[in-house]
């Protein structure tokens, strides 16, 4: 019974829902459409529980860090404090942002912190480009030249100095980049299809926890 619940039943459910979802796409019958509507509601409910699981996992990881005084455990404490304060203020404000403490945290903490994190990237990219972006091989040289043309042609000053830079950058993005990206996309898609088939037919079972 335990083996059935742990292995056979999930495999059966995966097979049934996998095949049904694939077939549903090609059968626009009202019954099939109604089933999709119902399943989309289920999926959102399941995702809600996944969010709870994610929060529990986050708390567990950071609690373990604080308990063992692992390197950077102070940051884990900050995670706990900020999460608890935000939840408490959010509940107090009844989830409303306009003129509440919750809105203040959103505008003056979250917005500012996330903006700062992303802005700092610009500085690190410049520093990394100076130290690592070198024509050490023919391939690296091609990449370097393409990057310089795109950087030059994608800003008004570059186009002002050399008017052909803009269309040239556009050509690199539209033709060379698209060709390479399309190859990658086709590869990813074929891999996705192959993995899906393996999961539906129970060949790939790692989602069960690594046990056969």
């Amino acid at each position, binding site marked *: 019974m335990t083996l059935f619940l742990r292995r056979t039943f999930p495999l059966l459910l995966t097979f049934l829902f996998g095949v049904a979802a694939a077939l549903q796409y090609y059968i626009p019958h009202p019954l099939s459409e109604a089933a999709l509507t119902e399943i989309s509601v289920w999926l959102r409910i399941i995702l809600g529980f996944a969010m709870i699981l994610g929060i529990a996992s986050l708390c567990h990881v950071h609690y373990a860090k604080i308990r063992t005084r692992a390197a950077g455990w102070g940051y884990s404490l900050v995670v706990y404090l900020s999460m608890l304060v935000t939840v408490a203020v959010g509940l107090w404000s009844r989830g409303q942002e306009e003129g509440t403490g919750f809105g203040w945290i959103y505008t003056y903490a979250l917005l500012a912190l996330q903006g700062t994190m992303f802005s700092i990237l610009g500085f690190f990219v410049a520093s990394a480009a*100076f*130290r690592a972006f070198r024509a050490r091989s023919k391939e690296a040289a091609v990449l370097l030249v393409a990057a310089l043309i795109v950087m030059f042609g*994608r800003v*008004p000053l570059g186009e002002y100095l050399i008017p052909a830079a803009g269309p040239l950058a556009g050509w690199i993005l539209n033709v060379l980049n698209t060709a390479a990206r399309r190859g990658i996309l086709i590869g990813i898609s074929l891999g996705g299809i192959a993995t899906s088939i393996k999961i539906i037919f129970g060949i790939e079972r790692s989602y069960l926890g690594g046990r056969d």
Partner: protein
Amino acid sequence: MRGLAGKLLHLDRRVIFVLIALATLIPLLRPIGLPVRISPEVRQVYDYIESLPAGSVFLLSLDFDPASKPELYPMAVALLNHAFKRDLRVIGMTLLVTGTGMAEKVVSGVASEHGKQQGRDYAFLGYSPGGSNVIIGMGQDLAAAFPTDHYGQRTTDLPVLQGVNSLRQVNYVISLAAGTPGVESWYVYGKEKYGFELGGGVTAVIAPGLYPFLDTGQINGLIGGLRGAAEYETLIGMKGKAVAGMDAQSATHFVIIGLILICNLFYFLTRRTTIRSFGSPQGRPGSPREAGR
């Protein structure tokens, strides 16, 4: 000469940070206002909105959080200005919970500038958990995916949503995204099945990855990065934050181009000596460790 080049290759990164800061700040304080060339992919979005008759349903999904605000917020402002100017019925929403407050602010802010009334001329649905599943849910039954809007009003009672039961009745969707869920999700789970036209507005980092979708017609236009936002502002005759930021972006790009050229010049000047100086592959100029210094 080689000695000097070798020293400059190990330039303190704080000097580079200062250069970037100056290249950003000075043009913002003293803008030049260089003209922005309009690319075909941005014009396609503009032309499509222009072709929509008044009263058409335009859905703007603001699928980004504050980290991508500098690039995508000006895009949202420009698109909303255009849509309200064209008297389209605007539906705003987000697939990212951390973007909700920001999305609400931009939709209601631009709407009030045009004298538009919430519920009658536009709706802000807010956030619903589920990512891509929300798109499927909206495609099947909009009221089931969003029983109420962001302000707690029943979506079935909103005049602006009369006749809009699902995504099938939406004329144009634009996803402003910085990742997943975003433009690809709207295509795979939305446009492909429910048949609306789709455009994209994304950060400069992910824009190159969407060009294949543009050429195949899976998306009808693409606004990429701050540059794309500046182009859109130019098209609608608006001097917004994107146009203002383009001089700073020009200067920053040129500083980075200069740094790359200098670094390669020094690299070729010191190549022989560095091979002797940096015996271990870990410490060689250009290695990941070196890049992180």
